[in-house]
């Protein structure tokens, strides 16, 4: 039988992790990566914009404008558009390898979307909120940015940006 290798089983010494509980308010809620998004309501992705030529960067570029011929070192933080249209989407049916960490003890499949931001003219990837699968998504669909837990450990609940279909 022709087969490809099945992806690795999920197991990564996850003894310090447990299911994320939305009622656990004792633990600090922190961004899983610093400086990429705000935790306000509503949240925004944080990118940078070149003061000289006006191009945008996400993930942020703080030191050097990478538009050839510009080379400015004057880049400012900007909040990116909160909504966009789906460019494409997929899901993860197997647990990705480390350093991915499942938010729950048992892995559950989740969707991902690449979203076009109109003003910034760039496409940004993100997970899709829990409970929304590929069957609920279409190319061109409008989505908005939200924050959800990525995983939890002894120290904190680590948060990440996700895309959520805009209620029609």
């Amino acid at each position, binding site marked *: *039988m*022709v*087969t*490809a*290798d*099945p*992806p*690795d089983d999920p197991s990564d010494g996850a003894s310090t992790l447990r299911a994320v509980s939305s009622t656990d308010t004792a633990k600090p809620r922190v961004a*899983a*990566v*610093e400086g990429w998004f705000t935790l306000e309501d509503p949240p925004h992705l944080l990118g940078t914009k070149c003061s000289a*030529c*006006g*191009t*945008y*960067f*996400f*993930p942020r570029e703080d030191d050097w404008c*990478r*538009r*050839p011929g510009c080379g400015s070192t004057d880049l400012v933080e900007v909040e990116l558009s909160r909504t966009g249209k789906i*460019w*494409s*989407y*997929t*899901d*993860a*049916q*197997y647990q*990705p*390898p*480390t*350093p*991915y*960490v499942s938010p729950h003890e048992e892995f559950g499949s*989740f969707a*991902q979307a*690449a979203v076009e931001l109109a*003003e*910034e*003219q*760039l*496409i*940004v*990837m*993100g*997970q899709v909120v829990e409970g929304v699968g*590929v069957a609920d998504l279409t*190319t061109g669909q409008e989505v908005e940015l939200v924050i959800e837990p*990525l995983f939890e450990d002894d120290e904190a609940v680590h948060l*990440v940006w996700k895309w959520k279909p805009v209620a029609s």
Partner: protein
Amino acid sequence: MSRDVVVAGVGMHPWGKWGRNFVEYGRAAVADALEDSGLDWRDVEFVSGADTIRNGYPGFIAGATFAQAMGWTGVPVASSYAACASGATAMSVARDRIRAGACEIALVVGADTTPKGFFKPVEGADRFTDPDWLRFRLLGATNPTYFALYARRRMDLYGATDEDFAQVKVKNAKHGLANPRARYRKEVTIEEVLASPMVADPLRLLEICATSDGGAAVILMSLDEAERRGVADSLKVAAISTVTPTYPNTVLDLPEFATDSAAVSAAPELPYRAAISAAAYEEAGVGPDDIDLAEVYDLSTALELDWVESLGLCKEGEAEQLVRAGETSIGGRIPVNTSGGLSSFGEAIPAQALAQVCELTWQLRGQAGDRQVDGARVGITANQGLFGHGSSVILTR
């Protein structure tokens, strides 16, 4: 005026999954390539290694690793890493050295031993500045995630179906049957492909290439040297493209989080993947109509269709029609992946671009047996290494 460089010999260890030292596979490939070109190891004047980054230090210095494995002769070496493009980059380094007149005979070699399952980032501490680490942590994005995004686009833009994608696997499995070095040598039906488990919607397990062990080697010579030595059937290296993207890169590329912004700069005339082979066509002075066969990077079934279009072998959106009509099968108008492709081999990163060159070599020499494309004179390879490494080689008879 450049000196012509030719492929004077090739060698390949079969692809498989044994977990042995990668050096063993590479050395076997080198031995075969030396025999194929009628050389002794001591005739080699430059070694250009394609690195593996998952096998510790010896993998990062592949040139020296293989020079030592074959026996130190004081030969100069270079080692290249360019992800999937490593073999082509290593080949371009060797070719340029010959063209510069610094040597006449060069060995290019790459080999890998791979882990089971998904490729994951190189082991180590958390790396918040490494996009390849972060995409796993923040997005849970594996390589198939990206292949699936491109596949979904083909469905939405061109009406590609699950059956279209599965047909690519069926075609390549059939080609692989005739390749003694392929890891998978069994025909598969559309039904079997569609019955395999979904990995990243819409791509299923049998549509995503495996990760494999393997090794390949190519001997390059100046044309003068090949003629002096009476090498029969040498093939001209007409082009090697190693171009990077042009800003703004507006196609979401593995393993990035986002594209460049097109807010103030227009997207380049050619998207990146097409630009890779365009550079090769221009250097070789040939066009898509001159191509007799193509070895492209079918990391997924759908991606082969993207490549066929990027190579200009048909118009955008028409690749599915080509497959349906059998045009990309052996015997068709423009055979693609006569070797069986990654579908039949799986991927051994540093060796894979060289494996593509091996297949072109056998085809253009008329040594491809049951896979033979009649009258093949011009072949092209194409792949793309993550973080912006282009790879396209054109060989001509």
